[in-house]
């Protein structure tokens, strides 16, 4: 494949983290394939899905890494923090423990992720009103505490799923654009040009 044949302008890597069972895989399935499965399938280790979206006039390829929420996969999953440009911290509004654990997940992000990583707090399963134990206000308060955006979503009824991913992706694209602008001095971004002369840091 040559550069001219490439089907996207920007590749963004996102990461989903949160307790086991909060619905990370479901969010991803809804976002990438517009499907929903009620079964609870434990993600083993790590998985990813790809979706290409348009932001402004750019085709942005999103590679979203889905991590296993279970503790036993922690070693595997934390390895993926570093490569992530954006991280979605997901909890279940019907599961208080998963909400309380967001603090720990946030700590993990602080420890392993890049400093400038874009975050968003997502309260999933917001369709289950009668089972809800975490209020929108609590979620908002926590997000405010971290200084990150907050959304309540439902993969089942497809509420705010797009918004969550778009929110993070848009911010990342803006950051990249700004950097590119700063580096090249021009307003446009031409990723296809390559960046041989950029910093020589290893990943």
């Amino acid at each position, binding site marked *: 494949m040559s550069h001219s044949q490439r089907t996207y302008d920007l*590749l963004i890597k996102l990461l989903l983290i949160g307790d086991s069972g909060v619905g990370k895989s479901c969010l991803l399935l809804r976002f990438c394939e517009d499907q929903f499965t009620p079964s609870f399938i434990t993600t083993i280790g790590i998985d990813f899905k790809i979706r290409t979206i348009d932001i402004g006039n750019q085709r942005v390829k999103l590679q979203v890494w889905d991590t296993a929420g279970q503790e036993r996969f922690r070693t595997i999953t934390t390895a993926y923090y570093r490569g992530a440009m954006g991280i979605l911290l997901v909890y279940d509004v019907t599961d208080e423990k998963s909400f309380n654990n967001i603090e720990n997940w946030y700590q993990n992000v602080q420890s392993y992720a890049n400093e400038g990583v874009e975050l968003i707090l997502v309260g999933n399963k917001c369709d289950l009103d009668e089972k809800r134990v975490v209020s929108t206000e609590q979620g908002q308060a926590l997000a405010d505490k971290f200084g990150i955006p907050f959304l309540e979503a439902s993969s089942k009824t497809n509420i705010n799923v797009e918004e969550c991913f778009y929110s993070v992706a848009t911010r990342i694209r803006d950051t990249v654009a700004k950097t590119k602008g700063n580096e090249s001095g021009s307003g446009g971004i031409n990723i296809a040009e390559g960046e041989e002369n950029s910093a020589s840091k290893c990943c």
Partner: protein
Amino acid sequence: MKIPNVSTPPAVPSLTTKPLTVTKTKPKAKEEPQEPPQDMSLHLQQLMLSTDNVQNNSFSEDFLEQLVPIVKDAIKTKRTGELLDRLDGITRLQDRKLEQLCEGGQGDYLVSMPKLSQIRSGADRQRGALQDLNFRLQQSGGQLVTRKKRLLEARTVRENLDTAIETVESCLQVLELTNKTHDLIKAKKHFAALKSLDDLQNVHLKEVSDYGFARMINDSVPQLTSLVQEDVVNDTFKWLSSLRSVYPAIGQAAFQETERLRQEWRDEVHRNPELARYKFNSPIELSYRSSSFDPIDNHSVLVELDPLYECLHIHHTLRKTDVFIKKFDEFRRSHVQNIVPTVASMSSASEDGVAEILQNLAGFCILDRTISSRTTKGFRPQSDVDDLWISLSQKLMGTLGHELASVQDQAVLVNLKAQLGLFVQTMEQYRFDTVNVGDFLLLSFRKFSQFLISGFDKDFNTGIMEDDTNKITIHDADRYEKITRACWWTPADDEAAGGKPGAATDGVFPKTLPFSPILPLCCAKITHLIHQHYAFLDEFNVSEVTQTEDYVQQAMDSLLNDIICDTLLHRLMTTTREQIVQILIDLQQFERVIPFIAQSIVDGRPSQRKSKITLKAQKKFQQASAKAESRIFEHVTQTVDNFMELEDYDWSTTVSSDEPSSYLDEMVNFLTIFFNSTLADLPFAIKNYVYFGAFDHLASSLLQILLNAPRGLITTEAVHNYNVDIQYMEQFVTTLHLDGGNASLSTTFIEIRQCLDLLMTNELSKEYNNPQIRMRRYDRIKPEVAQQLMDMSQTMKQPQSPQIGGGTQQKPTSRFMRMYRNASGAHEP
């Protein structure tokens, strides 16, 4: 009889006139034979002699008395004339004697003259006396004759009277008998009545056949006979009708007896398990059976057939048995109408209704059979009994069949089956052909099976909805034992699935088994289902059982195919790799347990057909497994493609690097985790297939990237960098630990390796065109690919600086990342 005229009027008083009168008299028929004349003269001579000594004058009474009989005799013999002649003779003799005397002596004569006149007057007197006597005699004889005549008349009258009395008595007897017959008819003593009618006709009436009343009675006999006959038939039918109320009791008693016998057989089987394969009502069971059960004479039922016997006897006597047979059959047939109702409701409320119908029907038919076997041969032919039974059972099946369709409750069905089973087994004992009911039982069995299967379907779908398609984790030994037993899981299977030897039995919990909970759930349910199916057959007979056994096999097969396999196949459409992998494992586990299920089907069979069977599901699950394998293959290929999409080789780079591209690095990391976790439980053969497929696909994708590289821009540095990536992949492939070795996996990169080698050689076309070298080093390269490579080589840019393999340069990939990191000021490690 006429009284003979013994005397004529005594017209002539003198002796001389006598002969005239006497001659006129007719001789009496019964007169004694005529005395010879000598006798009379002899008597007279004697008399004369006796009177010789007597004085002539003294004409004594004595003389007269002696003369009378002679006269009498003369009269009697009508020889009065002769007598008179004799007497005249005597007189003449005496005269001559006198003359002699006179001649002899005048004196004497003179003397004798007075004497003679004396004698003469004496003779006159005598004659008068004789006439008087005769008259008196005439008189008294006439009286006698008259009386005698009267006597005879009286005697005749008396005889007539006697005859009349006798006749009247006979008539009275006939009348009495007739009355008695009427009384007997009234008293319903039919046979006695018939017998007296017979007596009447054959004996008594014959005696008085001349009389009008007798003729009337005689004429009435046939009517009376037919009256008796009708009466007895009516009575018999009344009696038969009255038995209607006994049918249920007969049926019930017979059912109870069957239940008792069944229990006895169960006990027998319990004592002697070898007998278990013989069904109730089988010859073996029959040989063990001891029963003196009388269906119409037992603890709860008593039916006397006497009225029927009497009726039969009467008809037999009348020689009208044929008529009765016909009537009887017609009556039984007409009776049938109400035995089986056309509509029966089988809702739970009226289960008793079915029981009642069955009892009634059984009672009716058993009674019919009993009548048939306990009456004269030919009266109630067994074939009639069977015909009736067949039409009745068909009607019953029609009624029940109509209702069966609407049965929605499994319990109702089981109950119905149990009742019908009991019914069938009972009817078989009375030699009724139960094929109709048997067919119905088969129908109900199918319905039952459908209930079970749809129940399973429901449970399965609920189960699978709740199933997370995760491996089953067991926390205690008890449950472990249950689950492994349910799905025939052995420690050997555990090891085969990659478990450590002995791990299955080390008692350490929790334990994880490779399959998801749906497998033991299904296995347990199927085992139970098979059991339920066969339990339903308990009361079935052998021929039905064979058919149902095949049906069970089909049902289980379709259950495995249509419910389990299809559902799992449908779930394969999911994109969740964990699910796909788990489904594959589950499918393979199902494949593993299907022979056990088949064995259960065979083992459970009530019949002796124990040969091994192969379920169609076996193949279906194999195919499904293959499909799941290809789904995993697709998924892995898709994953590879996803990474490949992230590739952005810079073919015009002048910077060479010894680090692999980051997308490949990510892919290798990802695949390593994927292979070691998600795919870890897959059997070696499948892993090998998946890996091989994945790397084959990867290698050809990578080759395409090379071949698609823009001509004229490609630098040797870029080729170098590309070669580093390929080396990285080759290395990765060799690190993958597959049980069977990695030789086959490494082969996937041979073609790309040869291509690269060829591209990087200095004298490319020369080497390739040398057949020996080509055969040794480039045998996998297709000619057209080689041509492309040669074109590429010709346009390749030589390095601008001698830094190839310097190792200090960063790979040109991950530009976004670097860009991003720069922007966000992240620190590199």
